[in-house]
């Protein structure tokens, strides 16, 4: 939670702008595809963003079994 210097924020913002250009450049003709740009997180470096907002721990889930599918498909 340390206060972040203006320089650091400016550097993160510049990096975000570059990242947006790259992400938006790859599939420009694909309609409905996602658009990336400036938002409330643009002043954060990716590692800072991840450290604050992406804190869900992964777990191993069992594969959805075939027999359950039949019961689901029978549900009216």
């Amino acid at each position, binding site marked *: 939670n340390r206060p972040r210097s203006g320089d650091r924020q400016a550097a993160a913002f510049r990096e975000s702008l570059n990242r947006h250009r790259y992400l938006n450049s790859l599939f420009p003709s694909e309609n409905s595809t996602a658009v990336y*740009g400036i*938002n409330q997180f643009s002043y954060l470096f990716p590692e800072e963003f991840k450290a604050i*907002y992406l804190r869900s721990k*992964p777990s191993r889930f*069992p594969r959805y079994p075939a027999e359950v599918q039949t019961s*689901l498909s029978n549900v009216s």
Partner: protein
Amino acid sequence: LPLRFDWRDRHVVTQVRNQQACGGCWAFSVVGAVESVCAIKGEPLEDLSVQQVIDCSYNNYGCSGGSTLNALNWLNKTQVKLVRDSEYPFKAQSGLCHYFSDSHSGFSIKGFSAYDFSDQEDQMAKALLTFGPLVVVVDAVSWQDYLGGVIQHHCSSGEANHAVLITGFDRTGSTPYWIVRNSWGSSWGVDGYAHVKMGGNICGIADSVSAVFV
């Protein structure tokens, strides 16, 4: 399967919330599912306490992180009743657990299911119709810059790191997509929601899917 379905159309999904700088997405998604499934069962739609899950689910780490599976296991094993948010409001930091008497009103769960639906997103859509909004964990690294549209590239099914709630799907256009409620406030994405392509397990959206029973 209908071409389009969204539990919001049935007024059983609460408003988008904002976790602020608290790493409690896992709690927001689980509580969001309980709110909706209770409303689907006929209870009034209302915000339930995310702070209660953050403070009290001892098998998680509060605002430092947690897992949807651990939160669901905790709710199921303890039969803790989730109280209204107004009684135990969100404060964006971990705190001491507040306990309530058994007579205090609230909502507990009867159980939950948790499956990997990768390569079976049609079955996942059926589960959404059958059980209500689904709790999922995705790789949301590229969501930092998301403004809108359908996420279909730059989003691997690598390491799941963010928990969200699927409220519906839309297959009417050229690219079918899941309708995903996030907890980063309504100014992020599409009014607080993200659209993630259906099929192909984009962002790992089908790897860790839970449904709640009440």
